[in-house]
């Protein structure tokens, strides 16, 4: 197979891979240093103990768990959305699935590491493997997240094989890496059939896992008896929140990358339009769940629940609570409901507030319940320390670094899917035309129009 077969119009997508510039080096250095700082802080935490955080007696969980839930939530961006879009054969999905999947894999790895940060004795984390107990929701998480990680990695990788082969064939360095990863792809029909089948299996598989992951994470809280946590709708509530934050994160990533890599040709208004409508729907859905959750607590008027309720609504956490409502509901709905504001900057603002708002939601779930213990202890207080902020920054830096590195080595937009889209659309159009245009002379009706 000759390389010129791939000399196609989308060569500009490979520019960042074939000629990485100063920007890449600066970005990796800055991000790398941030990540390194986070690791230094983490080693200090290991050496001195969890006392370097702002955690304390009633508030035994803080930023690490908040960020764990938050990052894992973001990770739903990807795989779930891309799988649903693929499954529903939404043609416009083609330029965005890859980015969504990358978000998933990178963020999932970051999120999954957060419980380890939270351990008092991280060197004993292996106890989970030697002596784990399946009745603990934490173990459900371990198995569920690792399954999701595995599935989403595979789901990212398999559709990437043809693109890797393109890179391999174009002689991009490191060549051994691309040869290794291309798995001998030549684009033969048989290979394409195999790949298509595999992608289909994975996309069906990934959806229930993704749903299960955030359900199970919500169970960490819901399975306890604590006020504000012990709720049956936590599972769907978390899943909705996760998809919500995932779409917002995806939109942000798309807008940013579009700007950096000049992807205006690929990411068009319609992509943002469709996704932002989805975001709007999720915002309404999120509000519905939030409303149900808090109304139930309020109407039941159980003293312990009410203590948490008032702590959020009118107490010390009121800024965060109402900030969450504003960020997750008011701002996105107001921006996205009107065509005039549903511009790309508008969508960016809405997505940003949703990501912030969803982080606030996680904070609102984790801290207030712990800060208001049933036992008659004074109301708790939690102020994250520099270490925790540093680790948060490190997490975000890792996420961006992951993206930068990915973009350095792999195309951010699926080349072959776009190609396939083009070919399919030509075929489809031809087929459609054939249905009403006069048949060409002396030819059998075309049958290969089906996708």
């Amino acid at each position, binding site marked *: 197979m000759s390389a010129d077969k791939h000399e196609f119009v989308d060569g500009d997508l490979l520019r960042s891979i074939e000629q990485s510039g100063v920007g890449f080096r600066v970005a990796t250095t800055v991000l790398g240093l941030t990540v390194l700082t986070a690791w230094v802080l983490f080693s200090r935490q*290991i050496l001195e*103990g969890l006392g370097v955080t702002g955690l304390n007696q*009633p508030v035994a969980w803080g930023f690490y768990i908040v960020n764990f839930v938050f990052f894992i939530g973001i990770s739903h961006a990807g795989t779930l959305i891309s799988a649903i879009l693929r499954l529903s054969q939404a043609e416009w999905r083609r330029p965005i699935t890859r980015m969504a999947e990358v978000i998933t894999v990178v963020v999932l790895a970051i999120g999954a590491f957060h419980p380890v940060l939270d351990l008092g004795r991280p*060197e*004993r984390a292996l106890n989970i493997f030697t002596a784990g107990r399946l009745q603990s929701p934490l173990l459900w998480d371990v198995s569920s997240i690792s399954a999701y990680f595995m599935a989403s990695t595979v789901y990212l990788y398999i559709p990437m094989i043809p693109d890797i082969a393109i890179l391999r064939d174009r002689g991009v360095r490191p060549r051994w890496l691309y040869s290794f990863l291309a798995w001998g792809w030549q684009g033969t029909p048989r290979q394409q059939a195999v790949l298509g089948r595999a992608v289909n299996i994975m996309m069906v598989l990934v959806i229930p896992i993704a749903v299960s992951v955030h359900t199970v994470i919500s169970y960490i809280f819901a399975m306890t008896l604590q006020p504000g946590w012990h709720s049956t709708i936590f599972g769907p509530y978390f899943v909705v929140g996760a998809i919500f934050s995932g779409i917002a994160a995806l939109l942000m990533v798309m807008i940013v990358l579009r700007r950096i890599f000049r992807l205006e040709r690929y990411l068009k208004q319609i992509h943002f339009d469709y996704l932002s409508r989805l975001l709007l729907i999720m915002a309404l859905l999120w509000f519905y769940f939030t409303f149900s959750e808090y109304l139930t607590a309020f109407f039941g008027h159980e*003293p312990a629940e009410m203590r948490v309720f008032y702590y959020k609504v009118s107490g010390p956490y009121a800024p965060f609570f109402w900030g969450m409502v504003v960020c997750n509901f008011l701002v996105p709905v107001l921006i996205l409901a009107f065509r005039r504001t549903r511009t790309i900057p508008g969508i960016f603002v809405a997505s940003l507030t949703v990501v912030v708002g969803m982080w606030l939601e996680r904070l609102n779930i984790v801290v207030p319940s712990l800060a208001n213990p049933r036992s008659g202890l004074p109301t708790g207080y939690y102020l994250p320390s520099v270490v925790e902020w540093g680790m948060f920054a490190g997490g975000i830096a890792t996420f961006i670094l992951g993206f930068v590195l990915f973009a350095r080595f792999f195309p951010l937009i699926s080349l072959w899917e776009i190609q396939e889209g083009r070919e399919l659309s030509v075929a489809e159009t031809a087929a459609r035309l054939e249905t009403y245009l006069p048949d060409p002379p002396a030819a059998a009706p075309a049958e290969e129009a089906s996708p």
Partner: protein
Amino acid sequence: MILPRRDLLKMLGVGAGAVGLGGCRQAWSVPDRLVELALRGPGLESQVQTICGLCAGGCGLTVRLVDGLPVGIRGNPHHPLNRGGLCPVGLAGLEVLYAPGRLQGPLRRQAGGEHGATTWEEALDEIATRLTALTAAGQGDRVAFLSGEPSELFHDLARRFLHGLGSANLSRLDDAGLAHELTQGIARAPGYDLGGADLVVSFGLDLYEDGPTPIHATAAMIGSRPTEQLGALIQVGTRVSPSASKAEIFALVRPGTLGAFALGIAHTLVREGGYDRAFVAEHTFGFDDWTDEDGRERLGFRRLLLERYYPDRVAALCGCDPALIVRVARRLAAAAAPVAVAGGDAVRGTNATWTQMAVQALNALTGAFDRPGGVVMPPPIPLTPLAALPAPPAPSLFAAAGDETAFGVDPVEALAAGVLDGTRPVELLIVLDTNPVFSSPAGDRLREALARIPTVVALASFMDETAAAAELVLPTPTFLERWQGATTPRGVAFSTLGLAPPVVEPLTDARHPGDVLLELGRRLGGEAAAALPWSDYPAYLKQRIEGLALSGQGSVVTGSFEESWIQFLEERGWRFLGRKEIESFWRTLTQESSWWNPVRSRGDWGRLFATASGRYEFFSRRLEARLVELGAAGEGGASAAEALARGSARLGLEAEGDEACMPHHEPEAARGEGELTLLPFRPITARGSLGVTSPMVLEMFGYTAFSPWQTWAELAAETAHELDLGDGDEVRVESDRGHFAAVVRIHPAAAAGTVHVPLGLGHEAPGSLAAGIGANPVGIMLAARDPLSGRLSRTATRVRLALVKRRSRGGPPPRHGGSEA
């Protein structure tokens, strides 16, 4: 197994790799001896009985030893005082023993003002030289001794030491008990038979956490009784302490009106006939109107009560509901064996003596004297008497009463004033196990005075504020390292003697204060040596115990409490006969550490009422005589009535004439400007002076108010609301003298217009954990005196609160119940 941390870390290191090793933020200083012991592996366990010496309560302890090292303390379940219970400070005894910052050896002030190490030899030589010079110059009375050691046994020794020098300047700094002197004619406070009382009316005293023996009080009222027969408590006070929260009735009153409340109760008792007529008729003086020797009609207590202390007036004074007074009085009248006690605020004010007289009057009205469950005199401890020494020529500087107060002086103030004014110069001062610079409102004057005294010798286990101002600082062993001889604590109804050898060798280069005195006596020679003929302190103790052994009274506390009681009954009348028996008695006593005598001879009224009339005096003739004396001074020829009036006026009393000699409400003096009255209280974690050297005690210091390691200011909710302060706000408590920082704690039930601050924190002296922790409310108190006893008031200071910082951390827990309940 005791494992030094290094070893533990090594073991951890195997599992955790280098990670585990990084955790040590501070190097551990485990003594080599302990490391060695630990490496060899711990061996045998044993238990010894001893006495707690951290406060004057004298609780029995059982110390658990492993390889001879103490590893645990618990209350001695057989000890009659505490019956197994122990307060948090006593339980922290081992932390005091091993505490960081203990004085390691003798220190001497160097030229630069800093303390530097010296040796015992040099230090003792120096003191002996000074003392010799003073006695040679006939200035023995310029030696003074402030002692914080509560034991009579030690007190006797110290007195002999001073008498040998020709000085009478010995003070124990404890409460005077003047009220008992005035009404009962006894110098020593009587005991209260809490174990037999069915109702205790406590005026200001946090019975279960403050006072001389809170653990004994708890054991007697609750611990030793079945749940159906628990002693009932009525609390009259300004603050709902944990003890007060146990009260069946809690009467919240304005500060300084506790005496008035007592008189209000007395009024109701008298008006409703709920008092013990027989007792009043037989054993009291001045109840009804009476005629004196000159034929004058005098006011009786009954008329005073009925005319002046009717509930409406008292309620107005106290700021409470009149019905509450009647309710308390009726409850008191209905009780079979009630007793009234005073403490806390009631004994700290400028009207402390009258307040205590008023409370004692309730005991007289209810006939509580010499009744089971009442006010009794514990039997004396038949110690070997010591040959009398000639009395020193000059009276004690602590007893000298000027004309400003009727009977006494505040010892710290007197010492400071004498030195600073040059009226009673002191050349050498010994301060033992007490810290008046810290604990007295006259502390800063004392500090000034200490700088003027040529030689100040502090005998202390820790570098405290007083020791820091001393020239020589000589380490004393803590209670577990020393011979202890504890005598009956104040207010206990039976006699006890705790006698215990050291549990461990001193961990520091410390010497027993008794041995120090004996050694000094030896070095001085002459009369001083003759006054102290004992080779060492145990020898002295042993000689004093002989009398006890030979008396055959009481019993050594062995086995269970009940067993020892039976044993006591069996042994009654049995006499030790010879040296051998004395030896065996000594051995048993030092092993079991405690002796007690619960048998009181009833009807021995002379011991209870040593007044001229031989009765309880509602109308104190002694006070009358003194007031007349004061009024007559310099103005001969005045009639007795005029002199009395003038005497009262001289002391600034509001009461006139006969009322001044009887329990009455004398308004509390207030000093300084401010919207609130500063009232100190002593939480159970502030017992004794050494508790604060224990990290645990500091950590649980404010456990009742969620305030570890800090001083808090308790405010009533309405007061806080008026001042716009919230729970957890940081404030500055300011008096005209100074200020300190505290954290506001809002108490749902405290008297409005007061701010309650715990005593015990706010040390400045470095060297122990307590340094720089919290604040000392005594440090900002303004001088105000009880005109009778001369003691400095601790409740007279007005303060202002200034907000420093709003609450930064979480709030108080929510209240339970609410309107639905």
